[in-house]
């Protein structure tokens, strides 16, 4: 996972770079929780651009981080979600809580892409 933190906007971007299953989830959870607890961000974006596979383990993983981020009053969203993965999120109903964003505003964010 690659991590970017934009201090001015208190925006934490977690770019997942592996397939998401029960095995890889443990590592992703640990790293994400660490970054969230260190930065206490206002917003966390999970970037799925490099994720080509996800099973239902990913649902639990995202809900868990959403709860943690919300605890500190922050928001969680997802970007660059491929159709096969979106299908799984849609089935779970979590998109009522966590949005999939098409584009992200903010010049700072564009700089770091």
């Amino acid at each position: 996972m690659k991590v970017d933190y934009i201090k001015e906007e208190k925006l934490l971007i977690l770019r997942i770079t592996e397939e998401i299953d029960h095995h890889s989830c443990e590592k992703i959870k640990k790293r994400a929780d660490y970054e969230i607890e260190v930065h206490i961000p206002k917003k966390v974006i999970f970037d799925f651009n490099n994720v080509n596979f996800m099973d239902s383990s990913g649902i639990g993983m995202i809900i868990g981080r959403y709860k943690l981020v919300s605890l500190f009053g922050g928001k969680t969203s997802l970007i660059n979600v491929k159709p096969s993965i979106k299908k799984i999120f849609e089935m779970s109903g979590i998109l009522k809580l966590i949005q999939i964003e098409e584009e992200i505003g903010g010049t700072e964010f564009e700089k770091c892409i």
Partner: protein
Amino acid sequence: MKNVYKNQMRLEFSSKSTNENFARIAVAAFATQLDPSLEEIADIKTAVSEAVTNCIIHGYENEEGIIKIECKLFANSIEIEISDNGKGIEDIEKARQALYTSKSNLERSGMGFTIMESFMDELRVESVVGIGTKVTMKKMIKANEVVTENEIKL
């Protein structure tokens, strides 16, 4: 003649989470012989991943065990049987319900069986407490028919 398959394969591996990736890729590679679409391959990989994860965290509860996969290819479908000799499921109906999980402490979503059911065309779950669980799934491969049609036109 209904049960005549064109090809078959069997896999046996340890119930280690690193093998989740291996299992879904192996089954997907075998299924490519039916010329499935990318979406069908993604569906098969997800369903296999769910079933194998169930064997590891529910069947064997992260203890050492053996997971077996048996695949059969038919003219336009694949049948995948995934089994363990783990602790078994007490109430299959309940386990199959969406959002039900016996392992909420592990952040499991309870969507495993729901995903297998909706991504595959058939799902059968057999289980005996103390003996093990067997999940049988079938997926129709539709892309195959389209290709044949095109070939006829040419």
